[in-house]
């Protein structure tokens, strides 16, 4: 299996799109993230960072949700590149 190097959601920049593959969080916080729409396979758009860089607002299934670094650094996936190069 070709292993794509997974990136962290917190490293995606505003304007970029991101597809979630894995959530490395346990317990109620994971449950909460799933309920809010942060589900493996789904696409997230990074909207903007707050002035101090944390939290960051994301658009996920038609709703804006802000996450702290604490959470977004444990969400893994890949950035969806724009089709310019390919």
């Amino acid at each position, binding site marked *: 299996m070709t292993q794509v190097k997974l990136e962290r959601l917190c490293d995606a920049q505003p304007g970029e799109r991101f597809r979630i593959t894995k959530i490395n969080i346990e317990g*109620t916080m994971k*449950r*909460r993230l799933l*309920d809010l729409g942060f589900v493996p396979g789904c696409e997230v758009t990074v909207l903007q960072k707050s002035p101090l860089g944390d939290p960051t607002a994301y658009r996920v*299934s*038609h709703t804006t949700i802000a996450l702290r670094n604490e959470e977004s650094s444990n969400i893994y996936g890949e950035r969806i590149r724009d089709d310019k190069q390919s």
Partner: protein
Amino acid sequence: MTNNHEYTIALAGNPNTGKSTLFNVLTGLRQHTGNWPGKTVVHAEGFFTYKDEQYRIIDLPGTYSLYSNSADEEVARDFIIFAKPDVTLVVLDATALERNLNLALQVLEMTDRVIVCLNLMDEAKKKGIIIDIAKLSKKLGVPVVPISARNKEGIDELLETIARMVHGEIQTKPTKISYSRTIEEKIAKLLPLVKEVIGDEYPARWIALRLLDGDTSLLHALQSQPHHLLKGGAHYGCHCSAKSI
């Protein structure tokens, strides 16, 4: 009026789906608000009459889920499980079904007396979203009624569906979610135990799932219920829940 029986309707749904708009449309000014006992969660209840019958309607707190154990979600969950409303109306935002169906499926695991109410149909139309109501209803196994609470559209059909459900004229068969084999095996193992402890009072499959999830908040809620049923039973439950997956 001779019929003093009052039917109870619970309104569940995500935040901002227009639950309270629908609540206001149905009850007008016949409502009062307060807090749920012991919690700073707003409790709104109202009354309305349809075809000479009394209905009491409870506006549950808006939640994305019934599992994450915030006070809001506990209130909503406990009401659906312990108060056993005659009908639970799940209000969904027709413009964001993907997100909203999560809660609908959770409610369908808890009770079969569910009507799904697709609100904001006017918004959806504006956005060019077309929803196959019949198919959705067939897939979920419960009635689906499209409405626009803001424009008071679809309310008659909704009331009629509610009336038919409380009179037992609608048979539902909520879609059953199958889990992975390991989980299903554990559910099968737990089911007889759960039934032995709580009888038919509560949905056994759902309780088994909550136990597997290690949901201690539910166990506490069960224990605090004024019932005969948990004589040493909770103990039983705790042991099972330790087998986390």
